[in-house]
């Protein structure tokens, strides 16, 4: 399986920018009413803004020039109320647009998270957790400004621009055209810069993700780092990630900062052209001094929204790669999902049938892990899977809960094809315990009740007692309310395994799969645990993967897995009599004693 590491960049599909933007803004459109209201309030703000120079002009030219004090006072009062109105409007639209954008971000974030939950193991196995995290938190946050600015800045600036352009055209179409002459240059320049900048921002985002992954991995594995005194190496690697992050940023801004340089150049050229065309070609007389005067003001008003729009465009280019990365995950199809027309699996008895099952990981289809495996397990049977590491024991167990889909053949539980029932109804009836015990941050109680949140206190304690965990839980500081943290303070790996056992116990599964579940538990505790399991799982189907043959011996049947298939199957006595692979394995553990 090709796996992405912290030091490699991820591949990003090429999607047109337009598509990404349209998709992003569709989220905004869910808030049409709010957006219309924001637009309305913005219009008021904009009107006040545009009216302000007129007001000043009126005041200076008329009231002050004529010495009309009451008029001046009236105007001041009017202005005061206008500004007050704008303040109220401003408060309104700022809150509203923040609400819309934050809601959109919340929606995208939860959609992304929900989608990630549906993805198959393959997705998680092929990339570091830190990279997925970077998308859920960092990438989404960086969309915030872009979304809110697109309403609060884009709209007013665009309207201002159009308004000013109209006024300029009316006042003198020749001068207006001269001023517009530079716009194609601006647009062309921006386009060229944008193409390059976009690529560079994409790279920067990848480096950002690498850095995130590195930090995550380093602190998750801090024990190994310190135990191997590998700090200097890790620091060197970190340094490389952080440097790449910095350099990719500098590379990107080297291009992106050209935006404002371009705007300034075009501004100078525009002024040059305006006066050159106006005076030399059209002739100053035809246009008039007043118009020239007015035009210098208008030109200023014309360029300020253009600057804003250019910087907004820059922002889009900067952040669109974050949006791309978010959508990239949303577009990753869930390999394992409820098929159309899947039914709820009713309460099962626990018969399991493998029918000519072959399996290969999706990205290595030619390399079969299992080939043409068939077997039948009656409800209540205990099956032990043995064989060399990597032979496919865990794969068989994973296929039963449909963590992966079979490549060929089918798996039936009580006659139901596992692909034709809903995942939830299937997995809720399975109890899977793996070797890597994962406990969540929270109390011991919350962890035991993970699969059954509404469990009663007695049930929980019964489950804990059954696996012999109650005693040590009561020895912890707060008993069942003791907090467990990521690097669980005070609990040994074996104790964590016992808690996981209690958790599985309580969820009351019909089929139990124990994949090396007792590997870190000492022999005496294991015996007690086994007694507990046996009592609770009487008449329930179970699959046990273990290396300690003492655990295996009691199984109803033993499957010896090797070479992609079941090599031998039968009870302990049968297999021992056969003197095959199992016999050799079994005998080998006593070799040294003899």
């Amino acid at each position, binding site marked *: 399986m090709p796996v*992405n*590491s912290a*030091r490699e960049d991820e591949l990003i599909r090429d999607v047109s920018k337009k598509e990404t933007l349209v998709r992003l803004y569709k989220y905004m459109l869910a808030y049409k009413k709010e957006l219309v209201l924001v637009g309305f309030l913005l219009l008021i703000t904009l009107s006040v803004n545009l009216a*302000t120079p007129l007001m000043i002009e009126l005041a*200076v030219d008329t009231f*002050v020039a004529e010495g009309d004090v009451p008029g*001046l006072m009236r105007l001041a009062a009017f202005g005061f109320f206008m500004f007050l109105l704008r303040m109220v*409007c401003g408060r309104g639209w*700022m809150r509203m647009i*923040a609400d819309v954008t*934050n809601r959109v971000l919340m929606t995208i974030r939860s959609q992304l998270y929900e989608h990630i*939950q*549906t993805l198959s*193991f393959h997705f998680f*196995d092929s990339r570091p957790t*830190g990279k997925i*995290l970077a998308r859920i*938190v960092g990438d989404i946050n960086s969309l915030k400004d872009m979304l809110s600015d697109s309403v609060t800045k884009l709209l007013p600036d665009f309207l201002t621009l159009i308004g000013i352009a109209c006024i300029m055209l009316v006042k003198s179409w020749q001068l207006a055209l001269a001023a517009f002459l530079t716009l194609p240059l601006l647009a062309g320049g921006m386009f060229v810069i944008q193409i390059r900048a976009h690529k560079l921002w994409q790279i920067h985002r990848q480096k950002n993700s690498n850095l995130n992954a590195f930090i995550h*991995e380093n602190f998750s*594995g801090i*024990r*190994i780092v*310190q*135990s*191997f005194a590998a*700090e200097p*190496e890790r*620091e060197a690697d970190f340094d490389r990630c*952080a440097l790449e992050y*910095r350099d990719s*940023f*500098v590379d990107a801004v080297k291009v992106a900062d050209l935006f404002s340089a371009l705007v300034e150049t*075009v501004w*100078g*050229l525009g002024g*040059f052209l305006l*006066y050159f065309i106006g005076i030399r070609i059209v002739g100053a007389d035809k246009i008039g*001094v007043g118009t020239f005067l007015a035009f210098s003001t208008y030109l200023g008003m014309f360029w300020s929204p253009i600057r804003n729009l250019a910087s907004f465009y820059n922002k889009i280019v900067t952040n669109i790669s974050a949006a791309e990365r978010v959508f990239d995950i949303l577009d990753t199809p869930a390999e394992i999902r409820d098929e159309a027309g899947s039914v709820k699996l009713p309460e099962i008895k626990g018969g399991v049938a493998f029918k000519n099952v072959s399996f290969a990981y999706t990205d290595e289809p030619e390399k079969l892990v299992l080939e043409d495996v068939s077997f039948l397990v009656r409800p209540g049977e205990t099956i032990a899977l*043995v064989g*060399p590491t990597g032979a496919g024991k*865990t794969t068989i167990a994973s296929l039963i809960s449909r963590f992966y889909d079979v490549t060929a053949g089918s798996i039936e539980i009580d006659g139901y094809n596992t692909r034709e029932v809903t995942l*939830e109804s299937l*997995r809720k009836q399975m109890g899977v315990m*793996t*070797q890597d015990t*994962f406990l969540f941050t929270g109390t011991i109680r919350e962890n035991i009740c993970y699969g059954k949140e509404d469990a009663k206190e007695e049930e929980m304690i019964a489950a804990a007692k059954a696996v012999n965990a109650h005693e040590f839980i009561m020895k912890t*500081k707060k008993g069942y309310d003791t907090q467990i*943290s990521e*690097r669980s*303070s005070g609990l*040994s*790996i*074996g104790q964590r395994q016992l808690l996981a056992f209690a*958790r599985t116990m309580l969820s009351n599964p019909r089929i139990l799969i124990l994949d090396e579940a007792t590997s*870190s538990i000492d022999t*005496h505790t*294991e015996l007690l645990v086994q007694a507990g399991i046996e009592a609770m799982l009487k008449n329930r189907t179970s699959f046990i993967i273990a*290396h300690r043959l003492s655990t295996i011996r009691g199984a109803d049947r033993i499957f010896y897995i090797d070479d992609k298939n079941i090599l031998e199957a039968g009870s302990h006595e049968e297999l021992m009599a056969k003197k095959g692979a199992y016999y050799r394995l079994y005998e*080998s553990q006593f070799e*040294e004693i003899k």
Partner: protein
Amino acid sequence: MQKLGTYMKRYGPFYLLGFVCMVVSIILDMAAPQLIRHIIDDVIVGRNQELFMRFILGLLGIGMGRAVLQYIKELTYDAVGVSVGYHMRKDLFCHIQKMSMDFFDRHNTGELMTRVKEDVDKVWMAAGFVGILAVEAVTHTVLVLFFMFRLNPKLTIVPFMILPLIGVCAVRMEGKLGTVYDKISEETAELNTVAQEALSGVRTVKAFAQEKHEIRKFGRHNRKFYDLNMEQAGIVADYQPAITFLGHTMLLMVLTTGGFMVIRGSMTLGALGAFLEYANNVIWPMEIVGWLSNDIASAFASWKKIKKAAGETPQIMEQEGAVTPERITGSLRFEHVGFSLNGQEILKDINLELQPGQTLGIMGMTGSGKTTIVNLIQRFYDVTEGRILLDGKDIRSYPLDALRASISVVMQDVFLFSDSVSENVKTGKREELTQGTVEWALERAGAAHFVSRLGNGYETVVGERGVGLSGGQKQRISIARAIAKQAPVLVLDDAASALDMETEQLIQKNLKQVDKVTKIIIGHRISAVRFADEIIVLENNEIAERGTHEELMAAKGRYYRTWCVQYADRKEEELCR
């Protein structure tokens, strides 16, 4: 971790360069209207055609000049900002990495990620881009005020009255935002932690079909994140329009007061026009005051968090003047070692003695303190009683890296980095280890065969925590990693739990050949420890039984009972001989 100023000082000349570019650029900006006035006054009205080309070329020159200056300014500040961030991040990372285990027990990975990633990002933004905007706004305002004062000192009282009010607003807003950003930063860490946990524990989540539960849990934090962001937006919405209002009120006051002065004849109409122009010019810096205080508040909140993390000192410290001995032979001695954590006694009165090359086997109940012994030898925690001697010297007198380099541990909980197999094996000795040693170690750990069958052999990248490999395969790589280190002390903490019998025996055989190395083997299977020179059985935090295999068998105690269970299948006479 240094002070923020120290990080910035390093780039002093660049800050200066950016500042100069900015000032010149502002001056050019202010010169443009003068040129236009000349074009109108001299060229159009005055009909002076000679100067015309010079004026409009000047206009073009201003544009070009500003283009270059702006570019230099922006690039300088962006590059300086990100570089300050780089140094800060590096220092923070190195600092955290040196912290001792108790720190990592208290802080989740999600939280640490937020500190090193998001928080540092916010601070460097403020150190570069945001910082320059603030400086530009202030410079601009000061320049304009200067021109205003020159024009009409009396009328300048108006902006001097309003500006402090705006300042008060900005400071208050900054204060309130600081509190919110404090919480936002906390919540980002929470969000990171919740998401990280669900992703790391995805197998558990799916096995229990608890996706909905996880989504709800994430939803709650997502919602809280939203609420906090709205709280922040609310504060901005409260103050920002008020600041703009004050700015425009100033304009009105200038207009009316100036108007009276003109009417009374103490000021010319032209001067009022110019004054108003200037007043208009200080409005934009005021409008971005809100925005700036927002970002600065956010950066400051993050900086506080960074400083807090950077201010913690590791519990495990090297003694001053600790020297690395030339050679460590690997004799170990525990003298009345006791250890308690959070008031709970985990080990008491442990006495052990191991000569170089000897093997110690440790067995015991789950939670009896076996792994703690390993943690103590490596000084992940310090003993609370007694002492541990390595080569006759207290381990606390060694430099930490020398101590840890002389002990290689296979941990119970296998962790591999998402890197190639050979890089994983080389962990801690990347420079020293040759490919030959890597292959030798993998061979010893019974991993060479399956590794060579992986897609790219030794260079195959294994996923984070070794996903994609079976439990036994991961464990073999982690054993190879410890063997490759060739340290005088080798600790195997339940290192064979996921191995099948044959592999375990192969590895045991291989390990036996490695003499001169002091070995500590923790295991649950008799087969793992039976050839040890001494075997101890831990119970209730102390050594309950000790001796060789034969002695313990003869004692018919706990060890003997374990043996009986594990080999119960054998005939009675063979079994309990």
